[in-house]
């Protein structure tokens, strides 16, 4: 054999080798396709979400409190632009921005592929087309959250973070329903995870549901206006106003001052962002008395005609210390007169008759000491001390609203229970959601039909006799109206010293809780104003500060409801 024939044989072996390699390729590409395609999937794909529209938040009459608006982001690709000046001049009139600023943004961009010219621009179809014609300029759609009512509903509605996730208020509480589901676009990606080309549309965006709240913006406006007037007039630290429907538990208005503008994020501070109605329990003082009195009547410890000797303003004894009145002492009073004159000694004596066990039961039945379950985040339970820790002092103090801490929403609910003849209710802010297809889904809240927690006749007597007398003849005279019979109770509570025992003698919470019309209550109103400036000499009591505000709120709200309900 010639040696060169080895070369020929080698050549044929090489050909055989190539066939082998072809077979290997076929095996890899044809029979192993699935395995490797799966392996390739993750690093070679990137998912770009197509944002869903976030649901709107509406008031009970369909007025917009929060909504998502489609807006546009104008951007430039600097490397595609030869004459930045010409492009800027062309673009400037279309987006209402100085040409000079655009030019600077394009020329000074560090990223040759992308520079944001202007975001949140609203454009119409022809304008979009004209902008797209400009070389090197592009448009991206984005959602902008708008809050037309701004400060007015800030604590209720809350706001979203910049990534459109609820951060506060209803936006946070109902984030799941509001946010919907983003669509998913799958792109092929390079090793840096930048999209190259659209692979598939995995899912379409599903828009979020709208919320219909129980808030009435008009009433909200009335409450805020009256509250603001009083706070300014008395230089108070803060204020709370709640208007509720006593039968359904629907909150028609919930105002906290100071408030904030949800759009101006940079000015947000945690103090103003707190929804004080839920987060700041306080000693209620005398507005607590009607509930205790109602419970005492309900238990049969006292009756409406029985005289209670009020010790002429000086009641002391072993085991409960000394109790005085606000201004003057009283002799014999019926329970109605005790409420009317807001006698602490009278209430203390009723409490002592009931005993710790019964008082504790009563205030627990009215829902104090645990959150009301309002559909907002951050609600506090308040403090009702466990029965084992009650002393003689407690039995004589709790009945007039000391030694307990309650939130404004708890007080408002308790007054609703009295106003609706003793039925428990669930305070709530959202009554229904409307999904993307327009189907309305009513949210279930337990309403006034749930059952009586106190006898209806007791509740009726408290509201239409005792609390009416408070307004007509007693401490609540400033809330009296000509057109409507108002019922209610004033309260001027000391503020417990922070971190110590005893009370701050200079600062008070002035409250008025009540409603109207007494015969058939339509609304329950709570106004609490914290730390009015006593040095102004205009008064600091609930009767002086909160009662007139509550009266005006009741008058205007009932007038409004009368006119608007056909």
């Amino acid at each position, binding site marked *: 054999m010639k040696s060169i024939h080895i070369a020929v044989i080698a*050549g044929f072996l090489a050909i055989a080798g190539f066939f082998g*390699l072809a077979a290997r390729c076929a095996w890899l590409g044809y029979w192993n*396709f699935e395995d490797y395609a799966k392996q390739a999937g993750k690093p070679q794909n990137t998912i770009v979400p197509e944002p869903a529209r976030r649901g709107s938040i509406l008031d009970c009459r369909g007025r917009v409190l929060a909504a998502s608006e489609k807006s546009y982001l104008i951007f430039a690709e600097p*490397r595609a632009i030869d004459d930045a000046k010409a492009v800027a001049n062309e673009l400037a009139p279309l987006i209402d921005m100085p040409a000079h600023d655009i030019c600077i943004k394009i020329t000074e961009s560090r990223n040759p*592929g992308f520079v944001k010219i202007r975001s949140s621009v609203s454009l119409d179809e022809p304008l979009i087309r004209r902008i797209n014609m400009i070389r090197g300029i592009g448009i991206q759609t984005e959602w902008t959250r708008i809050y037309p009512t701004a400060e007015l509903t800030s604590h209720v509605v809350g706001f979203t973070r910049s990534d459109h996730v609820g951060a506060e208020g209803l936006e946070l509480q109902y984030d799941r329903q509001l946010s919907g589901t983003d669509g998913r676009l799958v792109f092929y990606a390079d090793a840096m995870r930048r999209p190259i080309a659209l692979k598939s549309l995995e899912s379409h965006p599903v828009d979020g549901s709208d919320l219909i709240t129980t808030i009435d913006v008009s009433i909200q406006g009335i409450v805020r206006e009256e509250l603001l007037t009083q706070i300014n007039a008395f230089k108070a630290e803060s204020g709370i106003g709640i208007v509720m429907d006593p039968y359904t538990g629907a909150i028609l208005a919930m105002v906290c001052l100071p408030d904030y503008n949800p759009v101006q994020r940079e000015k947000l501070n945690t103090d103003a962002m707190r929804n004080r109605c839920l987060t700041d329990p306080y000693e209620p003082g005398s507005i607590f008395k009607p509930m205790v009195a109602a419970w005492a009547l309900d238990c049969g410890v006292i009756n409406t005609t029985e005289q209670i000797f009020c010790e002429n303003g000086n009641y002391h004894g072993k085991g409960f210390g000394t109790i005085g009145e606000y201004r003057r002492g009283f002799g014999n009073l019926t329970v109605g007169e005790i409420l009317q004159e807001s006698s602490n000694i009278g209430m203390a004596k009723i409490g002592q008759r009931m005993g710790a066990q019964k008082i504790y039961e009563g205030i627990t039945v009215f829902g104090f000491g645990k959150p009301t379950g309002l559909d907002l985040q951050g609600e506090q339970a308040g403090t009702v001390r466990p029965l084992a820790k009650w002393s003689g002092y407690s039995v004589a103090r709790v009945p007039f609203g000391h030694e307990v801490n309650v939130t404004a929403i708890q007080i408002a609910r308790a007054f609703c229970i009295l106003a609706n003849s003793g039925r428990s209710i669930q305070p709530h802010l959202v009554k229904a959601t409307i999904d993307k297809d327009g189907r309305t889904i009513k949210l279930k809240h337990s309403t006034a039909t749930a059952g009586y927690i106190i006898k209806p006749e007791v509740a009726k007597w408290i509201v239409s006799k005792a609390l009416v007398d408070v307004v007509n003849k007693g401490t609540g005279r400033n809330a009296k109206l000509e057109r409507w019979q108002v019922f209610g109770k004033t309260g001027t509570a000391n503020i417990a010293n922070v971190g110590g025992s005893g009370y701050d003698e200079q600062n008070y919470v002035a409250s008025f809780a009540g409603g109207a019309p007494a015969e058939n209550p339509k609304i329950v109103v709570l106004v609490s104003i914290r730390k009015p400036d006593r040095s102004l000499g205009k008064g600091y009591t609930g009767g002086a500060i909160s009662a007139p505000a509550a009266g005006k709120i009741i008058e205007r709200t009932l007038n409004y409801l009368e006119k608007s309900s056909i």
Partner: protein
Amino acid sequence: MSKKNNADKKSAAISGFDWLLGETIRACALMLMALGVVFVSSAAARLDAEYNIRKLYAYTEFRQAIFFIPAIIIMQIFASLNYRRWSIRKNGLPGLLCNPMVWAMLISLILLVIVLIPGIGIEKNYARRWLEIPLGPVRMSFQPSELAKWCLVFLMAAVLAQWQPPVKSFLRRFLPLCGLAGITVALIVIEDFGTAAFVAVLAFMIMLFGGVVWWYLLTPLPPAACGFFFSIVTNPTRINRLKSFFTPDPNAVSAEAYQITQSLIAIATGGLWGKGLGNGISKYGHLPEDTTDFIFAVICEELGLAGACLVIFLFIMLLLCGIIVVLRCKDRFGQLLASGIVLTICLQAAINIAVVTQCLPTKGIALPYISAGGSGLLLTAAASGVLINIARSSYIRIS
């Protein structure tokens, strides 16, 4: 003497079959080069593509296209030069000194030494294999090992053609030839294990074709094996490559394992007909060395099994033509040179494809004609030109 002169003269008497053979080789080479231009352009595609026309040479995709035309011209030049020019026509030292390949070999050995000097040799991917030659406004980079490979093939064919088989005389004939190959391989192995092993195999095979007594060839094996073993254990990259070959793990994080996994993904996801020209995904940063050593994976991804078979078919055609050329050639030098050229091109192609499909451990070996790299393309085109000339010269008879 007169016979030889006649043979060296250019003759117009080319037979039809010889012409067809030459043109088939040319067609295969041109189609492979054209595929190379297309796929280097495709694989070099970037997302943030922005081109500066003045720096055209800096873009791999254009560089390959720029070299395409010179490659055609060079192939034509070498096809029209009589291949006997590369043989040794006189005995002894004068014969050697008259042979251009001897000088080219010397130059390439010097360049192989120069490239090892830090500061002159350019380091890419942790290996100092490149020289940069300033050529007007551009800097052309170039691997001396490529030149050395071709010089060795030509020179060994020329030297072996002088001796009648079986080539005996271990000391006077085998040892100098083996020494030349040994020095070349030793210089290459310092920075480039794959090419060195490939060149060693080439030298071994050409000596076998040249009729060197077979047991002579066994003698350099122990020292060569020792040398290669030493070069493997002293270099962690080479150990990793071997490890990743013998223990394939799709989740491995080492660069070598990642590369081969990406290569297999590219080939497999191509399927039967591929994702379409330019539609590959692996080239966007997923597959390293996509324009050079792993361009076959990009072809498979974009043209599928069909594209892979096309490339393999062209190399098989080249091999078949080469075998016919060798069988028809009546000149011993022509036979040796033709088999050397075809073997160099096709064996390299086979090794490259085997690496890409994980049949062999990863080496830095390019796919001839197709992988990006201008100087390599020109040298391969020149060798193809020589092969065409041999194919056309079957009438030459020297013994």
